[in-house]
């Protein structure tokens, strides 16, 4: 197990290193510089600016400095808000993004699991078709379309919740719901498939042969076995949510990382773009790693396989 974790960490570091290197050289060759964002400056002023960003050093030195800074969590200085560190900007903005992502994840997976469970128990019944329909629609329709529907009908027409900004919990409702649809759909489909498979397995027949009733079969024997594989979809779900927040934050004007990111793209603020990209990459890889490890810890069968 320890060896496995170390191996996975190794892969993670290599991947991050490659992405960081790629990002650095990309920045070097992209057209934008801090100067393009600023007003016309005299040559003297320009030299000062370039000095400040360390752009006068030879490229290998810049690369080295960049990497060293990265390991210390320093993502450079924004072109746009002069003098502000990218790391600080990101940290300021991570709160709303995390809140949205976390709420959507928790609400989404729980509701989705319930829906999937109902589907499996009433297999091929009316409830099954209903929840399968919800799942297909929820998986297919992009979150930004849901955001539009919610914003217009629930926000504008019904006026139940504010349509934009971030000034209290009620502001989180619409963006959270828009984001949660995807995890609901994925969790429901996955839960249904897993539960049906579990309910068709031999040990369920064994349990029934013991005289266990339907409730016991589903909840005592079935649920736990169906839940374990569900962990594997949490990774893709988290990734889907991160992708989703990038657009949802813009639609609902939530002051999160995604909104900042899009602003940065529109103003060619490369340090912020790259910083955010690196952060996203890191979170992606980290989440997948954690989930893989979690899976190994929770499932006794896998724990054994690794131990052997």
């Amino acid at each position, binding site marked *: 197990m320890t060896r496995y974790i170390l191996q996975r960490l190794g*892969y*993670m570091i*290599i*991947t991050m290193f*490659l*992405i960081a290197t*790629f*990002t650095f050289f*990309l920045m070097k*060759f*992209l057209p934008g510089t801090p100067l393009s964002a600023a007003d016309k400056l005299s040559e003297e002023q320009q030299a000062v600016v370039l000095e400040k960003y360390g752009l006068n050093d030879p490229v290998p030195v810049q690369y080295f400095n960049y990497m060293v800074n990265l390991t210390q969590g320093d993502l450079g200085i924004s072109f746009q808000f002069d003098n502000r560190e990218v790391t600080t900007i990101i940290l300021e903005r991570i709160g709303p993004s995390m809140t949205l992502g976390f709420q959507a994840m928790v609400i989404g997976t729980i509701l989705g699991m319930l829906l999937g469970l109902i589907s499996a128990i009433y297999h091929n019944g009316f409830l099954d078709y209903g929840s399968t329909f919800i799942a*297909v*629609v929820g*998986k*297919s*329709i*992009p979150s*930004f*379309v849901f955001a*539009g*529907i919610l*914003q*217009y009908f629930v926000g*504008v027409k019904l006026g139940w919740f504010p*349509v934009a900004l971030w000034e209290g919990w009620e502001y989180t409702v619409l963006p959270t719901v828009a984001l949660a649809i995807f995890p609901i759909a994925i969790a429901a489909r996955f839960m249904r498939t897993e539960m049906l498979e579990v309910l068709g397995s031999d040990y369920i027949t064994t349990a029934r042969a013991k005289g266990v009733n339907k409730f016991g079969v589903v909840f005592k024997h079935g649920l736990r076995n169906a839940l374990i594989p569900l962990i594997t979809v949490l990774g893709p779900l988290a*990734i889907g949510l*991160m*992708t989703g927040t*990038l*657009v949802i934050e*813009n*639609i609902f004007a939530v002051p999160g990382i*995604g909104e900042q*990111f*899009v602003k940065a*793209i*529109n103003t060619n603020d490369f340090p912020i*773009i790259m910083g955010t*990209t690196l952060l*996203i*990459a890191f979170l*992606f*890889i980290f989440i997948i790693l954690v989930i893989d490890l979690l899976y190994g810890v929770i499932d006794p069968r896998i724990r054994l396989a690794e131990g052997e």
Partner: protein
Amino acid sequence: MENHKPSKDLFVPVERTDNDSEKINRPSLSFWQDSFIRLRKNVGAMIGLFVLIALGVMAIFGPYMNSYGEFEQDLSRAKMPPKVEGLGWLGMDGTLSSVQTADTLEKAEQKAYMRFNNQEEFITLQTLNDGSNGQPAEVEAEYDVYAAKGMEDQSFWFGTDGLGRDLWTRTWMGTRISLYIALLAATIDMIIGVAYGGISAYYGGRVDNYMQRIIEILVGIPNLVIVILMILILEPGILSITIALTITGWISMARIVRGQVLKLKNQEFVLASRTLGSKDNRILRKHLVPNVLGLIIINTMFTIPAAIFFEAFLSFIGLGLPTPIASLGTLIDDGFKSLQIYPHILLFPAIVISLIMIAFNVLADGLRDAFDPKMRE
């Protein structure tokens, strides 16, 4: 027993013809026939297929069904609501409406007129609540935009956008572009994935080993990150978006193909044709590809909606196609800018993209079930 005294003549040994024992086998349908029959029974998948065909036809012919051009701007007809003769009951009657509330009925009416620039002759008011019951007065104003602009002879079926461009034409042009990008990306993914996975598995050993290491590193990089970085390098455009989508898109295909080929590689019929001296690529073509084709089709059916989603997604984060090109993504992004007052600008492209996504997903699910050997009796 229906016959108590069977005739004596029947008690003689059976004369056997050679292929008697073969007869007990049920006439077996070929894999494709069987799958197709199963697909046809799947109502959802068939509806999905039908919707896709209909949308495809509209993407090809829709833009030519009226005389407005995709890029034809005219600010005097900006943000016209949708109007289709005969579909007034659906709300597509070329009017805008607004509900205004105020303390008194008079004030509410005033506000309602003001909402549409006091062009009283084109406004019909309807009192929802005259304010006598203690609650605020409510008035609904309906404003005939086409009449107010003297355009009664025209109809923009899906309305117009902020620059006065016809949204019918743009929606179908946008559908065309989005489908084009998605199909192109899916095709490239398929070609690269099949070639990579097939070669990796078929030659095995060192080749396979190196090729798999490369994949392992590539999958570690989130495709969102790759797509964003690629677009930053390449500058947004149809081709660059397609390329960005394919850079990581082929990997899942390669893995699936590799897995299948590995599984099939050691099966008898391949070994048999190997010993009979077939050339390597002939075996690959004649035996392996048909066997993995089902999986390839299913996987492609899932990559197409994913590509459509990503195209729209890129528009949202400012990395989409440059103006004035219409794609479903740019249209939806545009629609959000005036969602609160002119929801129709968002409505139609949003419906189209949703239909495409649902239809592809349902069809892909149907195909997966149809090809699934577990379902075969």
